[in-house]
């Protein structure tokens, strides 16, 4: 189709990839995670967040090393090249399940958050259903649209976060950080435990996005992802600092959505009060991006598992699966705490680091490299263009009536 001839925006840029990565990390975790971490690490939680940076970086290195060996294939696709067809299919299934559960959890976060803070009377399933509708629409539009949406949401959320932090600057009380490292360095390290699984283990989604990054941008990708890791660390450290500094350890480890409660403290001249709905809006935006990416990766990996030619028919059925799953995945927020701290970390670490690391070791031992193209469902425009080039403009003149200009 000539529709998109001329411009090759078939794939996403490295910057877009990095922004998706940041949004995924900010997603639900920035809203929920600080509470859990502060509960364990108390006033040293910000150190924990700082320590999480290098771990995040190391995990990213595993993914990038794999991507170097198989630049045009997704995790699910190069598995097949590494461990054989049937073993790979079995392993793929675990990833499909992982992303299914992950999607359900993220959706549940939204309804928990909104049900508790903004819309207490509205039934949970209604909130979920509305959200899922938008997500399905987004996933069906494809990765390019998602990436562009992500860019706008990224700027918007950065802007709002900084406004909020600046508005709270004068309330920052350094006494809340004392005593520093009272129980030694061990406590902030213990606080790392939930972070390992949520969100670092979930970052494995990015291996499905790598092959979609524009080929000319691949060199920049490494740099921009490293920058993204730094940004993620900076965001989480800043948020945790403000949480502890403004609300204190006690209050922030008790509130289920600490950053939302943080914004309630904003009070500028009695005019700008209760702007927490703004925070709610940006969290809806970032959680939306996370869910869209999860459902996208879920659908794409399933389509690759089943050898389908298009992932889009899977999106709506998965929507119907994710929605009820999110309603039953845990009973209440107390249950969720236990689940996310105990169960999820083990599961997520296994899928997120252990399996990719094993694959990398196998690849290194077998000295496997592969530059072949896999079906990523997104090369439509590119294909058009390459053929569109051969088409010359001779058909144009035959039909259009060209005529000399009258004076």
């Amino acid at each position, binding site marked *: *189709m000539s529709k*998109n001839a*001329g411009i090759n925006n078939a794939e996403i840029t490295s910057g877009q990839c990095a922004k998706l990565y940041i949004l995924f990390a900010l997603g639900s975790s920035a809203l929920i995670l600080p509470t859990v971490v502060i509960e364990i690490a108390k006033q040293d939680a910000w150190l924990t967040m700082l320590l999480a940076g290098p771990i995040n970086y190391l995990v990213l290195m595993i993914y990038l090393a794999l991507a170097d060996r198989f630049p045009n294939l997704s995790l699910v696709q190069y598995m097949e090249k590494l461990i054989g067809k049937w073993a790979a299919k079995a392993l793929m299934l675990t990833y499909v399940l992982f992303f299914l559960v992950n999607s359900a959890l993220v959706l549940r976060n939204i309804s928990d958050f909104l049900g508790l803070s903004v819309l207490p009377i509205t039934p949970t399933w209604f909130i979920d259903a509305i959200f899922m509708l938008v997500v399905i629409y987004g996933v069906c539009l494809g990765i390019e649209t998602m990436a*562009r949406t992500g860019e*706008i949401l990224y700027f918007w959320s950065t802007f709002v976060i900084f406004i909020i932090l600046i508005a709270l600057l004068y309330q920052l009380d350094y006494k809340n950080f004392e005593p520093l490292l009272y129980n030694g360095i061990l406590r902030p390290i213990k606080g790392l435990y939930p972070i390992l699984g949520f969100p670092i283990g979930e970052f494995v989604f990015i291996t499905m996005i790598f092959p979609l990054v524009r080929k000319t941008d691949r060199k920049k990708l490494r740099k921009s992802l490293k920058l993204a890791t730094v940004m993620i660390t900076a965001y989480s450290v800043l948020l945790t600092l403000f949480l502890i500094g403004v609300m204190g350890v006690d209050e922030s480890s008790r509130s289920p959505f600490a950053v939302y409660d943080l914004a309630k403290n904003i009070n500028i001249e009695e005019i700008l009060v209760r702007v927490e709905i703004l925070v709610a809006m940006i969290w*809806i935006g970032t959680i939306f991006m996370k869910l869209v990416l999860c459902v996208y990766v879920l659908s794409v990996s399933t389509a690759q598992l089943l050898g389908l030619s298009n992932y889009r028919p899977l999106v709506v059925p998965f929507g119907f699966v994710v929605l009820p799953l999110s309603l039953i995945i845990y009973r209440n927020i107390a249950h969720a705490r236990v689940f996310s701290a105990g169960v999820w970390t083990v599961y997520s670490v296994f899928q997120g680091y252990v399996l990719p690391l094993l694959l990398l070791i196998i690849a290194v031992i077998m000295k496997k490299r592969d530059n072949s193209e896999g079906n990523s469902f997104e090369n439509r425009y590119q294909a058009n263009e390459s053929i569109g080039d051969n088409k010359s403009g001779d058909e144009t003149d035959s039909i259009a009536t060209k005529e000399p200009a*009258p004076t």
Partner: protein
Amino acid sequence: MFGDYLKGKSKSDSNNDKRSVRAEKHEQEGMNPFSNKPLSASLEQNMELLKRELGDASDIMYRNLELENADRTKLLIVYVQGMVDDDMMNEFVIKPLLSKLSSDQAESTSGKFLELMKSSLLPTGTVNELADWKQFLQKLFMGYAIIMVEGTDKALAAAISGGEKRGIEEPKTEMAIRGPREGFTESLRVNTSLVRRKLRSPKVWMEQWTLGEITQTPVCIMYVKGLADEKMLEDVRERLNGICIDSIMESGNIEELISDQKWSPFPTIMYTERPDTVAGNLIEGRISLLVDGTPFALIVPSTLNMFFQTAEDYYQRFDIATFLRMLRFVSFVIAILMPSVYVAIASYHQEMIPTRLLLKLAAQREGVPFPAYLEAFIMEFVFEILREAVVRMPSAAGNTISIVGGLVIGQSAVEAGIVSPAVVIVVSITAIASFVAPVYSLGIAARLLRFLLLFAASTIGFYGIGMVMLLLLLHLSNLRSFGIPYLTPFAPFKLKDLKDTLVRAPLWLMRERPQLLPSKNKIRQQTEIEPRKEPTQ
């Protein structure tokens, strides 16, 4: 995916087939009765055929002449009255033909008389030789005078088109305080000349098309060779090729037929009435489509950003231009969001309002019989009615409507306690904000979306607004205009292009053309002109 593409290709091929098949059918149905026949050598026969097939239309004039040369050559002049300039007709066609021929001219035989006329007897700018009826009819209805000679199966068309036209006036829809005051008219040639007068470069190229099987509307693609992307140009041609329709009345028809996304309230093709806007966009590497019969020219590709810009931004100082642009963005957001945010706050999130204001609002709303969302919806709807009425009514009655609307709806409704003053304020601010959009078609998107958002806000408050905004964002990210993502340079992010978006950077900083257009020639200014510094002593 290649299959997809192949399908797409065959589709576009079948489009072309469809076009020719349709054209054939058209001829069979007798729309173009004798278009492929050659002209006859006999004047009698030609005139008879014309009169029969054109239904002896009263505005088509036939003028028989007999010359005083040796052969007593007989001529027939055919023209459409009102489409040719009468003075030119007399002065440049009939007078030279009737004047005494010089002796060597008089010797010519009738076979060569046509050549003679073409080379030395018709003092008009353009003279075309016609061989068949298709060309004949085309020229006839473009306002040419057509001269046939007895015994020759060819005819000459002399360009003396004229008739009553609207003069060049100030553009009605895009006012400017500073900048040229001329706007496009309904005549294609006048319009192209207006652009040419601004871009006097040999690199300004034009392609002439004729679209619409009955209207035969001349359409002109205008671009700067070397700046406009060839592939995009090819894309434009291909899309125009795909048009097979009976009539093109206005550039809006073309806009609707060739835009990327058919189902969207957002315009993906910009239109303008100002030659300077067209010229400015051509220089940036865009392509313009000028259509005969309308003062609105199309510009492709258009991004959302362009709908917030006016030509005036570049004539004023950059600081005020930047301020005005931001103002426009903010007004657009207000025009879309204000009523829904009011409804969401009033019905779901009262805690966001400062206490003193809340008390004031609550006091106002006391005794108002409707809930806030119904109130807002009614007022918005009434406002839309008022707006449409003012646009359609003759201007004398328009004043009455605005008085009636303003007094009755604004004041009396509040005094009667049917609506609260807050809603009236909200609706008025929204209304004024929606008029700030420099391009009317973007304002239309805002008008439609306002109601969608109002509905969402009244159902689930801010969550609904958030969801609709997300949908909107996804939709906007998905839109393309001739392959260019609609939200460029924000998404995909192009740092260099930000100089001409929310802000308008000083001209001496804008050294490069927009990155979003895939043209190779990027540099606008070679030298680095910076503001002159005070001489140091």
